[in-house]
């Protein structure tokens, strides 16, 4: 018997159809309700367990009361084990966090999480990478890589993970500034990582049947080895966020690099950690510099998602020719084209075309930037 957790964020997605671009904060939810919005999440959430009903004898579905999963599970045809307590109609982020923690403590094999980026952040806050989590996309913004492409795909991935052993992978949880987003500006921060079953049909190949995390780590290490070998003295290396760039720091023996922020390296040493735009500009004043970035999240953005410290001015000062994109072959298979959204349309245009991404030790790939 496999233990599968189900957490539904009942208000996720409420702001989407009415054009509010998200559902973070009580005010927004009230506003959405006033605009006649209906929760999207419960309808989407029911599709995943429904797909798993043929296997219900083999699954113990653990869920939270009422609209946080119980209703959806029953509607799908399961007889779930319901834990915890909520005040129906007034659920909050705290309920999501508590549910995640309790499911972890009960030893569930996988949590299915119906919601959006905000829900993923709550679960990350609660349990980090303690147990695997898979997102059923039902929010407004799903920039995090923890989400399956649709509820049916989520069910299939869950099935494969529970019975055929899919590898696990650290996937990005994104934090998009909803206020800025409502004003028409995308500004996403890399918030953290969740442990997600990784579906190899996206990337196929026998070697991936072992452990994607392991294979991808090896690939990241190979990229890092190449980058470090090519490093030159007196150049300021601006190391963007993410696990691929972290590998470069690790290759240099730097253990305290900033996973979610930007670090500066000179002569193979960390000279400043977690810097902001102004600090970068000061550091590169009158000095040659190189930016090392890795695509963040699912959409393949190399600028403008999770690394806004690398502002248009920073990019211009460094120069297009001094941007090194680092991406494992696996990452590029998921995002075969790269994107830029620096906030400066003219700069975005200049960055478009073809660039070279370092994909391994002495291995580069020409990739389209759109």
């Amino acid at each position: 018997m496999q233990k599968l957790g189900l957490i539904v964020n009942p208000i996720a997605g409420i702001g989407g159809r009415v054009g509010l671009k998200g559902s973070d904060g009580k005010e927004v939810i009230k506003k959405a309700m006033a605009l006649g919005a209906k929760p999207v999440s419960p309808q989407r959430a029911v599709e995943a367990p429904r797909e798993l009903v043929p296997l219900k004898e083999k699954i113990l579905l653990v869920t939270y009361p009422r609209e946080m999963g119980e209703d959806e599970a029953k509607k799908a045809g399961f007889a779930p084990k319901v834990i915890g307590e909520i005040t129906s109609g007034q659920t909050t982020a705290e309920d999501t966090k508590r549910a995640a923690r309790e499911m972890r403590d009960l030893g569930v094999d996988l949590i299915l999480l119906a919601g959006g980026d905000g829900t993923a952040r709550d679960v990350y806050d609660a349990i980090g990478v303690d147990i695997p989590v898979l997102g059923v996309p039902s929010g407004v913004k799903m920039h995090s890589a923890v989400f399956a492409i649709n509820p049916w795909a989520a069910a299939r991935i869950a099935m494969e993970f529970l019975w055929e052993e899919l590898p696990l992978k650290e996937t990005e949880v994104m934090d998009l500034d909803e206020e800025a987003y409502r004003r028409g500006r995308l500004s996403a921060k890399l918030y953290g990582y969740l442990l997600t079953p990784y579906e190899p049909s996206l990337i196929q190949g026998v070697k991936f049947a072992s452990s994607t995390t392991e294979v991808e780590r090896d690939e990241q290490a190979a990229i890092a080895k190449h980058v470090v070998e090519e490093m030159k003295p007196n150049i300021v290396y601006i190391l963007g966020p993410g696990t691929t760039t972290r590998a470069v720091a690790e290759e240099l023996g730097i253990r305290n690099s900033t996973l979610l922020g930007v670090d500066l390296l000179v002569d193979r040493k960390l000279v400043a950690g977690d810097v902001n735009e102004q600090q970068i500009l000061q550091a590169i004043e009158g000095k040659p510099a190189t930016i090392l970035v890795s695509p963040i999240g699912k959409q393949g953005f190399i600028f403008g998602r999770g690394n806004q410290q690398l502002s248009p001015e920073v990019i211009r000062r460094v120069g297009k020719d001094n941007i090194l994109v680092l991406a494992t072959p696996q990452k590029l298979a998921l995002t075969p084209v790269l994107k830029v959204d620096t906030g400066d349309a003219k700069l975005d245009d200049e960055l478009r075309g073809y660039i070279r991404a370092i994909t391994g030790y002495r291995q580069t790939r020409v990739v389209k930037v759109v």
Partner: protein
Amino acid sequence: MSDWYRQARWDREGRLEPLVFELGGPGHIGYSLPKPPEHTNLPKHLLRTELRLPELSEVEVVRHYTRLSQMNYCVDLGTYPLGSCTMKYNPKLCEELASLETATCIHPYQAEGTVQGALELMYKLERCLAEIAGVARVCLHPSAGAHGEFVSMLITRAYHEFNGEQDERTQVIVPDSAHGTNPASAAMAGYEVLIVPSDARGRVDLRALEAAVSERTAAMMLTNPNTLGLFEDRVVDIVELVHDVGGLLFYDGANLNGILGKSRAGDMGFDIVHFNLHKTFATPHGGGGPGAGPVGVTQELEKFLPVPVVEYDEKRGEYYLDYDRPNSVGKVRAFYGNFGVLVKAYAYILMMGARGLEEAAEAAVLNANYVMRKLSGTRGYELKFDATGPCKHEVVFSAEPLKRETGIGAREVAKRLLDYGMHAPTYYFPPIVSEALMIEPTESESRDEIDRLINALKAIAVEASTDPEKLRAAPTVTAIGRLDEVKASREPILSWRMYRKHRA
């Protein structure tokens, strides 16, 4: 239909046919060894008193290997549509000729005057291959396709060194639809690998290539037709782009089965080409055993070829081996190539003749297109790239729709095909097609056989909905069912010694 095949399974009390070391027993004699000499010059620490070799009678040996062969599958048993491998029939006449004493009982150290026939055969095979690929000279030494690629990269290095450009030219461009060994061969020769993507038609993205070429380009490695079975119709532009920056063009000719007699690497503007005799020229696939991957070059690159080169002295009327080549990359293997393989390939070329080789390509391309047309529209399979034009010698379907609808992917389709008594197509390759099923029927298959293959693939697509468990469990009628492929490749047990250690 699937019950017409059942593979032999020799097992005793749940154990498959034992290893040869576990068979026989003391005193089972196969043949007698000559008495060792009283005195040898070998140092004492190399002398062994105990060999621990198995002792088996002749009949035990014969039965052992016959049983193993019955638990195997081969081109002589049935359809073998393993894409990119060209598993065509190996004519028995070629095998017979290669078994003649004049081929098997000569030694590479023999005086040239006593092996004139062998030298003549190599000289003439070289001329044939040069004519087929449209190049000036060919080296027969490399013992495998990837070895041929590697030698080609060594020649590329020698060329740039000769021009004093070895320090600037550090990159080799490889399309993402290339043979998997290309990047490895370039890297082994010390080059950085620069990969260019394919466009929506499954051909090299020319704009990406424009961004890739530079004064740092040493060479580009191109497979044409590529691994999607598609002809690079902009090959002339590709060649020009690379030549314009001073790079060389390498043609991966592992598989010429789609273009024999129709187009030639040399005519397309390539500088270096390699051949896999075990694909195009019907010699058996060694599976790690003896192969042959000759390399052909233009006149300009001739001086860099490995030594020795077989030459003909008209005055003496004799063939001889020429080692006096100062610009040569040197030796790339012991002696002159896998001679037995060369004999089979030469016999095949003479047997087929120019027109025959062309017909082989025509039939191979026709068969692949027949599969493409007949299988197109089958629910579950789709063509990812250019679905309009003809393919060449192979066709790549994607089982992605099947995977999406039923959860059954290319691997399950391939495994299930074994239950139908056919070898699987290549699956999960090329990596640019998700759930790839790469089918290459070759010219050897009759229409009946190809129809059988197509019907099996269609039946499996239906089974994916009606009986998915059967596919997940497949193959079930073979001697060995599904293996733990990851374990097999990570912890292989390759010798009796390793096996003993593993068991202990």
